[in-house]
């Protein structure tokens, strides 16, 4: 049915090379009015490059972009000019938002649309236009709130409103759900649906199959810079799309039943002080045994970060006790925790997990650089450091130029593999996996899951903090929910359904639900 709608955008034969790397190769793509197109592909498949060419951040080496003008005739879009793209009605919402935190929502939206020098601003006109837009799109937001006070989901709404305010007819979203909770993601797709119904054309970049299947009309699959498929979403399924995206069948690991062993981690009434809910823990009690995975669910910002910091050794409890293998850890310090056999996978691998400018080998030795293995009288043993990295590269199949390459050159999945190698290789008793697959592609997700299940098999106790509910149910033996700095009792994941969990995440206790 959407095939009858007029074409609003056409990409013809787009090719883009970065040195020897071909990021896009002869890609053709057509967008029609009022449809939602998903651009699916693994990290590095060329999705973002293609959208950056569309928006004028990059100039294609070959090919061109054509946008329908007011009369519906396709006109070439001048390459390399975001201004021209904006004028042609293309709006882009980047993965990392471009908002001024210290300004209000209204200021952020109108920024750049007004003449530079004018004494009074025509705020009332802007407010009226935005009120209409909010009415139609269902994007509700307080225009006078300061951006720094708003959640990630709200900030994304501002970005979308910003594009709509500039009369975008084509909206491009780069990995829009990467930073959202499941609930926020659902809300986003509802919004996109209603916008499309009003005639907006939407392209979103994703590597998450479920949202592609549920949220789009048509899917274009990119692999290795080429468009390998373009199919209507209706009638496709996840397995088929996964295979198209990865280029081979993806095997998923399965959690085998296993009786848990002795307790490894015991939190008894632990509290951690902090300025807000995010950083605080209140009377948290939890036991994690050998060979079991305890999943921690919850809406982002309910204290998961504090729990992760606690289990990483970054903060010391203000009350209560944390014991590891029967020993109470009174002084919390990451080095002590690593020495006590805690393997830690941080939430943000770029920020906390790795030092981007240092080499892969140095990053793998980062936590244990003071051990006898890597230093003698304070002098580094380069041979040992590199040998360890080479083992890890082989064992974890880290795709890289070599152990001496800066780790920032790696893709997200390969960087995560390096972090896994560091965290898991010394057979830790306790593993903290904080959002271990966020932003990873299907192949890398499967690898992370396989490694965690292997560790469980070996007898490690695992705390899995995740916002990905599929992952939560797939991996966890038991599930507990964080809400406002408190942790609920845990429940066997087999006994929980999505609805109950959703209620728990919203703060209703299980009994009431």
């Amino acid at each position, binding site marked *: 049915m959407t095939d009858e709608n007029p074409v609003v955008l056409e990409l013809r034969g787009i090719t883009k090379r*970065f*040195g*020897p*790397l071909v990021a896009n190769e002869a890609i053709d793509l057509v967008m029609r009015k009022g449809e939602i197109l998903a651009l699916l592909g693994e990290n590095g498949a060329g999705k973002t490059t293609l959208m950056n060419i569309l928006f*004028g*951040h*990059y*100039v294609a080496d070959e090919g*061109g*972009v054509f946008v329908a003008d007011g009369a519906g005739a396709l006109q*070439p*879009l*001048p*390459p*390399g*000019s975001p*201004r*021209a793209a904006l004028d042609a009605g293309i709006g882009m919402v980047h993965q990392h938002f471009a908002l001024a935190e210290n300004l209000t929502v209204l200021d952020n939206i109108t920024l750049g649309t007004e003449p530079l020098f004018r004494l009074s601003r025509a705020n009332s006109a802007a407010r009226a236009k935005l009120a209409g837009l909010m009415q139609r799109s269902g994007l509700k937001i307080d225009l006078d709130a300061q951006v720094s006070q708003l959640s990630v989901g709200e900030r994304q709404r501002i970005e979308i409103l910003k594009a709509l305010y500039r009369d975008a007819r084509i909206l491009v979203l780069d990995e829009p759900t990467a930073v959202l909770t499941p609930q926020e993601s659902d809300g986003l797709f509802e919004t996109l649906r209603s916008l499309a119904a009003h005639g907006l054309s939407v392209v979103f970049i994703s590597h998450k199959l479920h949202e592609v299947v549920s949220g789009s009309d048509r899917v274009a699959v990119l692999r290795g810079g080429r468009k390998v498929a373009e199919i209507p979403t209706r009638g496709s399924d996840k397995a088929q799309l996964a295979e198209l995206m990865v280029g081979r069948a993806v095997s998923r690991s399965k959690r085998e039943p296993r009786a848990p062993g002795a307790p490894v981690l015991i939190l008894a009434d632990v509290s951690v002080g902090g300025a807000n809910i995010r950083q605080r823990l209140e009377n948290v009690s939890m036991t994690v045994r050998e060979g079991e995975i305890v999943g921690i669910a919850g809406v982002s910002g309910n204290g998961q970060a504090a729990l992760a910091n606690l289990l*990483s*050794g*970054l903060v010391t409890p203000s009350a209560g006790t944390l014991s590891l293998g029967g020993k109470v850890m009174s002084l919390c*310090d*990451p*080095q002590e*925790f*690593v020495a006590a056999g805690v393997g*830690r996978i*941080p939430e943000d691998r770029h*920020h*906390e*997990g*790795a*030092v*981007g*400018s*240092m080499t892969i080998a*140095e990053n793998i030795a*980062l*936590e244990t*650089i*003071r051990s006898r293995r890597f*230093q003698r009288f*304070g*002098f*580094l043993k380069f041979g040992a450091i590199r040998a360890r990295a080479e083992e890890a590269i082989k064992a974890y199949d880290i795709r890289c130029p070599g152990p001496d390459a800066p780790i920032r050159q790696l893709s997200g999945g390969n960087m995560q593999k390096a972090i896994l190698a560091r965290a898991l290789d010394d057979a830790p008793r306790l593993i903290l996996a904080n959002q271990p697959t966020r932003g990873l592609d299907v192949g890398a997700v499967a690898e992370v899951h396989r490694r965690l299940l292997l560790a469980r098999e070996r007898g490690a106790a695992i705390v899995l903090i995740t916002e990905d509910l599929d992952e939560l149910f797939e991996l966890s033996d038991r599930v507990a929910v964080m809400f406002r700095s408190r942790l609920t009792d845990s429940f066997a994941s087999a006994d929980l359904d999505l609805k109950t969990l959703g209620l728990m995440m919203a703060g209703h206790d299980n009994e009431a639900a």
Partner: protein
Amino acid sequence: MMRLEPRTAPSPLLIYGAPVLAAVISLVLAAIPLLAAGVNVFQAYGVMISGALGSQFALTEVVARATPLILTGLAAAIAFRAKLFNIGAEGQLYIGALAAVAIGSGRFDGPAPLMILGICIAGAVAGALMMLGPTVLKVKLGADEVVTTLLLNFIVALFVQMMIEGPMKDPMSMGWPQSEPILDSATLPKLIDKTRVHAGLIIAILAAIGTEILMRRTVPGFRIRAVGASPAAARFAGMSVTKTMLLVGALSGAFAGLAGVGEVAGLKGYLTNDLSPGYGYAGIVVAMLAGLSPIGVIAAAFFVAAVFVGADSMSRAMTVSSYIANLIVALGLLSVLLSGVLTRYRIRWSLPARGRAS
């Protein structure tokens, strides 16, 4: 409109050619004010080169000026590596010199090696302590060290003025505000007779080599690199950001303090308030030119010293202001920094808004 696009693999020609090109461009740019001053540019640069490299006197003068620049360059290089922006090397240099004078001008006496070691330790410790305050304020309270270290320079300058006009004033100075002279036993020996090249050069070069080894090959250096590049990741891995910063601050201050020791005990013999013509600030330029590499600091210090010496003799011979030296160094720094950017990125000029598209 102009945009920067990252280059995936810069060619070797680009990597090694860019700095050379940058040096040439800075000379071309510096020709503009020379022309404005009505000078023959080729003659001026000829005088400059011969003034820096054309005689034994010129060469030893370059070496003498490079000596403190190596140390202040190291002070900046090691601190900047850890993202501790110490702009206070000038003040730390003076405090180091003051400490050397306090120990070495008659309060104690002993065999020369002991005295020299004594004033070196005193100067290094004094410089390190000067950095303690700003570092603690930065780590604990988030106070911007650029501001605190910069302002301390002026406080130190006034303090030194007070000391050499008051308690430490030389009674034999006929009223000049200067300290008592360093004892012979505490004076750094000359490396070449009848020149200004002194043993401070050896200290400076050893310090540079030592710092290079520290940064590349040791656990503390590993920590400094990690903390500098990513404090969050370093903290997560269990490194103490506070301790690392204190170490870096102490080393940085100590190097600047040593520069002051060398100037007062190797060159001037007593402390005046014009001991340093801005070596502390020039050290930042040296460190940036060296790309923050400790070994590279040696070469950069010689380069900057040569420009200063050459431009000095040019300004005397051609009667242009000696500030032209500062100008050339500044243009050189800007060119080198820009060439660094252009090595890593390529410039894309986007076409006019209604250009060709197909």
